[in-house]
């Protein structure tokens, strides 16, 4: 190969280099900073260079930190419950509304609205609705002659309250993805199923859901990743309370840094969360890649046949 042609091959990389470098610095610097901070005993009043290096102490101590473990548990429980509910409701609604009736387009648009509202506003909104005396729920209960519910002052009820708010905001996300998946299903396969004698349920179970599965799995992973990071709604509604009943991980991290002023510990917690999220993201990428590879393999096989 001549020098000239070698140079030619390098040209695109040379043009790309500055942008890639900039991106790498912009992305990696804050993350590197956080990783470094997690090895320090660092207070906000100190320069980072004055902080004491403590190795893995922050990470190890967290395993004995009951409040941290509790909030980790709350986060897992929260993510599992909201994502399950959102999947069931979102997919269910999509199956229900996947028809060409007039007026449905408007209804669909309305369903999507909650997703467009800033989470902090959603939190405030629900906090007022859950208000023990003037909130709509307890007022309604009262007018029916029922006992008021201690929405935000009881551990179990406040967890339920937070779950409801999150489900309200994010079910539409699953709903629009599912609806899009449903509408791109091969209609003729559904017609064939009809002639093969499938009932509505059987069509859903044997044809629609299996064909939607790739989209559903990606939607599930995206929602899981998001649910692990939830902050504002909970912060505004319960601020983690009462007790630690709704203290999700990102709230714990926030408070460790803000209230307890332990930046190094907060960084270590963040890194645990980061590892968990990276794991989920990797699963999603691997899954997507597998789906793509499979599709490519099928195409190749079909061309051979």
């Amino acid at each position, binding site marked *: 190969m001549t020098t000239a042609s070698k140079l030619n091959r390098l040209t695109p990389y040379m043009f790309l280099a500055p942008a890639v470098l900039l991106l790498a610095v912009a992305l990696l610097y804050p993350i590197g900073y956080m990783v470094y901070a997690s090895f320090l005993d660092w207070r906000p009043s100190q320069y980072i260079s004055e902080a004491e290096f403590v190795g893995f102490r922050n990470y190890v101590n967290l395993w004995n930190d009951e409040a941290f473990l509790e909030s980790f548990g709350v986060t897992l429980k929260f993510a599992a419950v909201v994502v399950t509910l959102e999947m069931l409701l979102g997919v269910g609604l999509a199956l229900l509304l996947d028809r060409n009736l007039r007026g449905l387009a408007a209804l669909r648009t309305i369903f999507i609205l909650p997703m467009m509202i800033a989470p902090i506003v959603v939190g405030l909104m629900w906090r007022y609705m859950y208000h023990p005396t003037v909130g709509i729920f307890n007022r309604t209960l009262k007018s029916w002659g029922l006992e008021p519910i201690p929405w935000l002052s009881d551990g179990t009820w406040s967890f339920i309250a937070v779950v409801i708010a999150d489900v309200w905001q994010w079910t539409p996300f699953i709903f629009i993805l599912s609806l899009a998946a449903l509408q791109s299903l091969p209609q003729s396969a559904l017609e064939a199923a*009809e*002639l093969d004698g499938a009932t509505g349920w059987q069509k859903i179970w*044997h044809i629609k859901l299996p064909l939607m599965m790739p989209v559903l799995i990606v939607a599930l992973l995206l929602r899981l990743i998001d649910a692990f990071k939830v902050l504002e709604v909970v912060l505004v509604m319960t601020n983690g309370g009462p007790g630690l009943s709704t203290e999700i991980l990102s709230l714990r991290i926030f408070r460790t840094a803000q209230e307890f002023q332990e930046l190094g510990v907060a960084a270590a917690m963040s890194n645990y969360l980061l590892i968990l999220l990276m794991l989920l993201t990797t699963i999603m990428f691997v899954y997507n890649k597998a789906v793509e590879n499979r599709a490519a393999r099928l195409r190749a096989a*079909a061309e051979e046949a």
Partner: protein
Amino acid sequence: MPTIRFEQVEKSYGAVRVLPPLDLALDDGEFTVLVGPSGCGKSTTLRILAGLEELSGGEIFFDEKPISDLASKERDLAMVFQDYALYPHMNIAKNMSFALRLNKTPKAEIETKVRRVADMLNIGHLLERKPAELSGGQRQRVAMGRALVRDASTFLFDEPLSNLDAKLRGKMRTELAEMRDTLDKNMVYVTHDQIEAMTLGDRIVVMSEGVIQQQGTPEELFKAPANKFVAGFIGSPTMNFLNAELTSKKDVLFAKGDGFELPLPKPLAKSLNGYAEKTVTLGIRPSSFSSDTKIGTPIDLRLVVSEYLGAQSTLVTRCGDAEVLVEHDSSSPVRTGSQLTFGVRTDELMVFDKNTELRL
């Protein structure tokens, strides 16, 4: 097996009328073939019968009971879709057995049925594959198999062999013919293929632009087409149409045109009362020409191209300015550009009205 009757069945998509009111009766156990040019409404008719499209008017009766309120699955039909419509996520065995699994057929019975049909269709070795891993022709056979494993009372086939090679098509044709003779099922079969229509159909329905042009046995359609469209559609190679003037000479009626003058047989001449001295369309089947000039009336044709088909050749010739196809025995060779003389079996001639295109 029900008798099926269409009564004034109509179909429009918005302002586009695809089927004008249409009457059609399919007898119990009959193999009906729908033929017609692309876009004439064959698939639409089939899909209406299957309940996949709603009627815009009229009614369909099964054994004289109206069925337009019945859902597809209550009509007891099996269908081969024009676009196959396989289940992409199921392997071939699962695709074929879906209906049987839904109605809880015993496992062993499903297995034997699928195996038998798959072997008949030469797809026994593909049962584990997904549809995306098959070629077009293989997919089409799976679509066929999925219908054939069922025990429905009516089978609908929408061009089920269109993607197969000639040999396989021949084999499948034989299998279908055997099914037709042994099973007491209603079959409605859509095709473009002459040979399929003629060999399989108990009755052929010729459609054009949503209108039924004629229906009858293959023989009726071939020997007595109702109009020029049917005459041109049935039979291969297609019938030749020539402009001719009818002239009477000494009691014999002649069709005279550019480069030919053919006497018309007595019975035909009789039905042409009132057309004397008028221009008509003369129809001559390519098989009505004989290289033995002692047969019938001689005609001179100039050979343009000879299309070799094996034992037979189709000669593309000119008679004056018009193109004329001639079926010819390949064993007697002919030279391109040469002037040839053939005998025309005049008793096979047909005459069509120039304007209405009806056969006279």
